[in-house]
Every structure is written in C-alpha cells, then in structure tokens.
C-alpha cells in the first residue's frame, strides 16, 4: 500500500465518507441540523477538491483500478457538487425528519458509489458500485415515507432483483472470458479474441445492466413511479448523479476498454435500439402527464435516449456524451430542486401542473428557475442543454445517420409539449388559489439552490458562445 498515492485518487471519496461518519455521530447525539451540515460540507469539500485536483494532477490509474485526473476526477466532482446541492436544498426536510440525516448520508454514499462506478476500471468495483447505487436508490425512494413511495420502492426492488441477477451473470461471463482478470485495462485485450457467442451474450447482459441503472427502454418501468413518489431532492439526486456515472461508465466500457474490439461492432446497433426506444417512449409518454415529477420521470427516460445515441456514434460520440451528460445532469437536478421550491412556496401543492398555476407571479425567481430548467432540458439555445443536443446531433451526423438525427429532433419537439406545459402553467395560467394568505414562504434553501443551478445552466449555455465549446467542457474530457 504505497502512500504516495496521488491525492486525486483517494482524498475526494474519503472526504465524503468522513463527512457522513461525522454526520451520523452528530445525528446520534440528536443534533440533526449539524449532521446535515457536516454531510453537506463533506460533499462540498469533495466537489471543490475534485475540481481543483482534476485540473492539476496528471491523469493516471491508482492501484491499477481507480482512474483519476481530468474527466475521471472532474465528473465525480460534479456528482458530489450536485449531491451537495440536493442535500442543501433538502436541508429543512432532512433536519426536521427523523430519518433526515440517514437520507442525506445515503445521498452522500450514493455519490461515492457513482465516483467508483465512473472511475473504477475493474469488474468487482463495477459490481459493488452498481449494487451500492441500487441499495441507495431503494432507500431514497422508500424514504419519502408515503404509502405510494414504499409501493414504488417495492416495485423497483422486484425489478432490481432480476436486473442484478443478469448483471452478475454478465460480469461472470466477462470475468471468465478474460481468464479471471478483473481489471478492464489488461482484460479487454484478451476479450477481443474470444469465441464470439459468449462475448456477445456478455455484451448484451452488461448493456442490460447499465440500461436498467439508466432507466432506458425497455428497463425503464421503475423510473416514472420512483421519481414521482420520492422526495423532490432525492429525485434530484437519483435523476442526475447515478445517471451521469452510469452513462460515462458505459461510454468507457464500450468505447474505451472492454467492448472496443470490432467483434463488438454490433454494440452500436444495440445502443441505437434502446436509445431510440427510450427517446420515443420518454418524449411521447411525457406529453399528457399531469404530475410534474412524473413528467420529469418520463423526461429522464427520453434524455437517456440522447446519451445512448451519443455513445452509439463512435469516436465523435465521446465528447458528445460528456457534454450531453454534464448539461443533462445539471438540468435535471435544477428541475427537481425547483419542484421542491414550488412545494415550499405553495405548501398545499398537489404535484400537478394545474396545482402550480400562476406560481411565477407569486414568486418570479422561482418562475425563472423553472423556465431555465425546462428550456435547458428541451435543448433550446442560450441554455446548457442546447450544447448537449447539438453535440449529439453532430455526432450522429458525422457518421451520417441523418434519420436518427431527425428522430432526435422530432423527439425534442414533442418533449416541449411536456416541458412547455410546465412553463405555461407557471406563467400563463391564472392561479385559482389566492396565494397571498397561504402560509407558503418565499421559497427557502431550495429556491436559492435552484437559482444557483439556473445561473450555472445559463453560464454553461452562453459562455460557450463566446469562448467556443472545447474550452468550457475541456475540464470534463476523459
């Protein structure tokens, strides 16, 4: 165990786990608010450290397993940042509820698993982080405490059992085919020259594992229920950080390490199949949704479709995936945290579009945050989401799959049916309930966080116009 391990590799996760442990101790001493603060500090510190270290350290592989430097530290840092924001946004909720600190801790540990999934180039680490994320997800959904939440969690768990079984079988296959070598770096060369049938089965099973974690079609069934019934802040975390990690991990595995041999050329069409499936299912499913969180659930499925299409389009897709997932993660968490703020501004909000009618007049800042998030998810220029979509289009078109690009375009338009209806409800519908006397206050920490995220989205949207795209997203490139 040489301690000369570069800081970037171990400092960041240790900070988070340390924060969690201290938080739990504070919770034990019955001082919940300080527990949440400690967890949040752990996450925030890790995020800042991650960003700083990612720029300064030379990229490398720690312990032959954990990659660090540039993208491999910056992306997890973004994960930690979003997790920290989710915890801060849910501060009141976690500080008052009995299980609050537990939830916050779970979010923190979830982001550690995400880091491991993304940076760990090892079969065992892959399985552990996938399972870890699953456990965290079940708990976060069930943690909402309502009957519907627990029902969604049970349903999610039932699906999860089959998915983790398939995942294990897939990894067993890969582990066997590489001759018992768990590491991606050394194992993948052997994988290229193996009998094609088992290799392809392994590819399919691993793809299914990731598709389930990402909530892509046809493994998407848990997404709408889970996002609708979990707390908004938990949903903010679940819809951004695990997806960020899973998509990047899938990119590394398919393009960079295990399945890069031309034996696996069919990976592209598999990715396209589930990608287009998710895109269409999500976009069309979203249009009629009355419940905003459920709408964002379907939106999650649709957006993953774009990510998968990006991965499917070869080398051009690498930067596209990165840019897309960064902009999506920020957009998704901004959207959910804004919903949390709506809950605070109008406590008796029933979660539906009609329920939040005219909220923008009641709290203009919230209106702006919601609009920025929605427009970014649609992919409208001047917002971060546009650069993601643009790169996906460029990637698809550079290996001239024009039809796919058109399908992606049409899906974006249909999706505005959903996103636009939220803006419409917020701005143009007249609120039947007279807001003044209701007890809702100005919006509290979730509003502050959603404004911060909205500004980030605007910055990520407008700055590239001035400085060109590579400069802004170079930080995250692998």
């Amino acid at each position, binding site marked *: 165990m040489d301690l000369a391990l570069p800081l970037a590799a171990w400092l960041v996760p240790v900070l988070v786990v340390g924060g969690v442990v201290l938080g739990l101790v504070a919770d034990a001493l019955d001082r919940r608010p300080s527990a949440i603060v400690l967890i949040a500090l752990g996450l925030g510190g890790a995020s800042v450290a991650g960003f700083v270290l990612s720029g300064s350290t030379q990229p490398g592989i720690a312990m032959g397993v954990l990659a660090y430097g540039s993208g491999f530290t910056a992306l997890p840092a973004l994960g930690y940042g979003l997790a920290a924001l989710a915890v801060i946004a849910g501060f009141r909720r976690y500080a008052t509820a009995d299980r609050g600190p537990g939830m916050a801790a779970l979010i923190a540990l979830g982001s550690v698993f995400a880091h491991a999934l993304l940076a760990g180039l090892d079969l065992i680490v892959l399985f552990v982080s996938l399972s870890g994320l699953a456990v965290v997800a079940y708990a976060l959904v069930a943690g909402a405490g309502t009957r519907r939440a627990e029902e969604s969690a049970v349903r999610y768990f039932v699906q999860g059992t089959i998915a983790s079984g398939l995942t294990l079988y897939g990894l067993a296959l890969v582990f066997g085919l590489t001759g018992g070598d768990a590491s991606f770096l050394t194992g993948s060369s052997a994988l290229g020259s193996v009998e094609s049938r088992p290799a392809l089965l392994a590819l399919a099973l691993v793809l299914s594992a990731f598709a389930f974690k990402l909530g892509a079609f046809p493994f998407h069934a848990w997404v709408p229920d889970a996002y609708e019934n979990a707390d908004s802040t938990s949903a903010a975390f679940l819809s951004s950080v695990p997806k960020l990690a899973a998509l990047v991990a899938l990119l590394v595995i398919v393009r960079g390490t295990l399945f890069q041999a031309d034996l696996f050329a069919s990976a592209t069409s598999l990715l396209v199949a589930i990608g287009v499936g998710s895109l269409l299912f999500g976009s069309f499913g979203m249009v009629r949704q009355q419940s905003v969180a459920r709408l964002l659930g379907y939106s999650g499925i649709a957006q993953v479709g774009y990510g998968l299409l990006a991965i499917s389009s070869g080398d051009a897709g690498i930067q596209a995936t990165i840019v897309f997932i960064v902009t999506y993660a920020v957009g998704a968490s901004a959207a959910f945290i804004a919903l949390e703020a709506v809950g605070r501004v109008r406590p008796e909000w029933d979660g539906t579009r009609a329920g939040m009618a005219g909220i923008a007049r009641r709290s203009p800042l919230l209106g702006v945050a919601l609009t920025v998030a929605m*427009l970014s998810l*649609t992919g*409208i*220029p*001047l917002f971060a989401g*546009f650069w993601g*979509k*643009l790169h996906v*289009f*460029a990637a698809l*078109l*550079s290996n*001239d799959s*024009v039809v796919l*690009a*058109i399908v992606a*375009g*049409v899906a*974006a*338009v249909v999706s*505005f*049916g959903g996103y*636009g*209806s939220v803006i*419409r409800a917020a*701005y*143009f*519908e007249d609120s039947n309930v007279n807001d003044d006397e209701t007890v809702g206050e100005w919006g509290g920490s979730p509003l502050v966080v959603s404004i911060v995220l909205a500004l980030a989205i605007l910055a990520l949207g407008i700055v*590239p*116009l*001035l*400085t*060109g795209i*590579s*400069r802004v997203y170079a930080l995250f490139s692998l």
Partner: protein
Amino acid sequence: MTLALLIAIPLAGALVSAVVGRSTAVARIIALAASLGTAGVAAVVWQAYASSAEALTYEFTMDGAGSFLRLAADGLSVPLVALTALLGIIAVLASWNVERIGTHMSLLLALEAAVIGVFLAADLILFYVAWEAVLIPMFFLIGGWGHENRRYAAMKFFIYTFAGSALMLVGLVLLVVLGGTGTGMPATPLPIEPASQTLVFWLLAAGLLVKIPVVPLHTWLPDAHVEAPTAGSIMLAGVLLKMGAYGIARISIPYTPDAFAAAAPILAALGVIGIVYGAAMALGQCDLKRLVAYSSVAHMGFVVLGLASGTELGLQGAMLGMVSHGLVAGLLFFLVGALYERAHTRDIGAFGGLGVTLPRWATIFVVASLASLGLPGLSGFPGEFASVVAGFGRFGFVIAVAGIGIVLAGAYTLRAVRLVVHGEPAATQAPADGLQPAALRDLDARELLIAVPLVALIVALGIWPRLVTDIAAATLGALASLAGTVS
C-alpha cells in the same frame, strides 16, 4: 465593434428594465433609450456600409479560442437590421401603457436583440442560437399579454416553429459536417457537393418556410397574431417573418445553390399559392388582426416569388417586399391595436363610419391599406412589381396566377376600409363588452409620433425604392450570380 453594440444595447436595456421594471416611468425611459440607441447605431452601421460597401465584420476572440460570436453586416442584413431597430422603437412606443410594463419592455428588447442577432450572425451555430432565442421572448409576450386563448396560441407558435427549426438544426449541423469549413460563414461560401445539397436544402427549408410562412405551414400565424399584444404583433409581422426569407438568401442560396436552383420552381409555386391563398383567406375574415395576418402571408408570397426567381431584380424585389411589409404590417397592427385599446373589439362588423368619428386614424388606415394592396407611390408596389416581373421572367405565364392574388388583395383591403372607415358612423360604437361607449378619441400625439414617420417612410420607399436596393445591390448581385441565373 459597433456590430456587437447592436446586440449589446437592447440586451442591456432588457436586463435593466426587467430588474427595475416596477415603476412604469423608469421602464418606459429605459426601453425608449435602448431602442433609440440601437437605432442610432443601426444608422451608423448603415452609413458605414453605404460608404465602404464591403461587409463590416466583428469577431469576439478570447485568447485564440474558436468563438461562435462572429457578426457581419452586408447588403442583405443592413436594411433588415435598420428595419428591426425602427420597429423596435415603434413597438416600445406602442406598448406605452401596458400592464406589467417592466417585464413587457424587457421581453421586447430581448426579442429585438435576438432578431438583430439572426440578421448579423456570420456563424451557422450563432444563426441557429439567435433563431431559437427569438422564440422565447415571443412565447412569453403572446402567453403573458395575449387575449382570450393566448395559452393555446403561445404553445402552438412555439412548437410549430420549434418543429421546423429542429429539422433546420439537423440541416445546419449536416452543413457544418459536410462543409468542412467549421461553423463560420466565409465571405464567399463554397457550396457543398451536389449529392447532399438537396437533403440539406430541404432540411433547412423546413425551418425557414415555417417562419416565412409558406402556405401549408402558415396556420400558426393567424392565431399568434390574434393573441399577441400590439407590440408583439408589430415585431412578429414586422421582422420575425423576414427571418425565414433572410435565411434562404443567407444560407440556402450560397451553400446549396444547385439544390436551390432545382427547388426554385417549387418555391415559386409556393409563393404564388401563398399570394392567392393568403388574399382569399383574408377576404373571408371578420377579425381585423386575422385579416392582416393573412395579408402578411400574401405579401410574403411575393417575397418568396422574388427569391425563387434567383435573378438580381427578383432578389431586390424580395428585399423591398420584406422592408415594405415590415413598415406596412407594423403600421396596420399598430392601428388595429390602437382601435382595440379604445373599443376592446377587433370584429370588423362592430365599426363603421370611423372616417367621421376618427378622421386621423381613418386617413392613416386608408394610406396603410392602399400601401398594403400595392398601390404605386407607396412602398408595397416596387417590391411586388419587381418580384412579379422577375418571377415572370424566370417561370413564364404560370406566374399570371399571382394576378388573381393582386386583385383579391385589392378586394379584401378595400372591403376592410369599406366596413370600418366608410358607411354611417354606426350606433354600435359601444365596445362589445358593454363598457360605457368611451367617445372614441382620435389618435393622440404619441400615437401620431408612431404613425406619421411610418407613413413618411412608406411614401418615400414607394417613390424611390433605390433607398434600399442601392445598399443591397452588391450583395444581392453576388447572390444572384450564385443562384446561377443572372437576369
């Protein structure tokens, strides 16, 4: 640097009035100052371009990074930018006493900045960014300050145009990928290989033709206009419709000339259909705003015909058509808006004899109507004349069908004049919703300050169209040679 100012000033105005928009007076002053400032800079740019006659360019570079912010002003964009700046002032003045004026003014200025961005963009991606950025303020203007079913109209407007421009984005990116020259628009753009030109052309056309609008894709326009507030309608009719035609001239012709030449007959047919169909529909309308909206479809039909001819005369006709329609439609929407402010109805039957009760309003309305039907001596005629003559030159007698449109144009315009201005001052002056029939007061000083300059410009452009065509001649000449048919 001045080009960047053209976008920066309205944007700054938008931000300031959004923040400080609480008090009406402050919002008004900021908005007026911003729009006047923009107009000033536009005049400077016009003068600079007129004297030097080679395109002004501006590129924002930060230590060598490949920035998308590349602006250029040439013969094609300078007149349209000037038109936008002018209509910006008119729109600001027209929304003098609107509720929630702060946000309204900021959206208006943001809209102006975005539209100027489209006209100045010398980068395919910046063009698209500005193109979409226009949708956002317009969406909120229609949705926030519209009338009864403004929500439906705002959503329809956004989704309809966004559907077109999504396909356009695919076309633009394909253009960048195939063109290989990066996203910047070189001064003399080299066309991409003919095989994929058709695909790129029709992908771009999807977005561009929706915006013009061309007939089968026009059904968003009447709803958007009926519901939009006066200032929104002025900007929507005045400049937003020009972005489509500008896009064809700026991107389709230089980058996909062969496909453009092949598609020219289809475009011409769409133009002619637009002329006749728009006029026929306008004849049947009883809502004044819908009537002017359909007349816009007819006018833009002439512009499309001019573009499709691909000759220099045709392009000059198209340019004139665009500028003139901007002025005429802007004036008409302002007048209808002013009438709506007084009588709270747009139904054509509710009025009559306004020539007696509102003489000033009536006189300007008659002048605007005559300009709208293309009476020589007013700005409508040169554009239509050049487009028809050029179109006829290229496509022959099939263009005669447009003649029906010209006659119908006279029919629906004069029908409106007959029902609104002529006839006995109807007893039904009482507004529809039973308000005490406010004695319909005639146009006041502010409103005259808006209308009279527009009328002056309409007459000036009618008498001497070379005010605009001279400045555009060089660029349009180059475009015409690109379009392969120079006549």
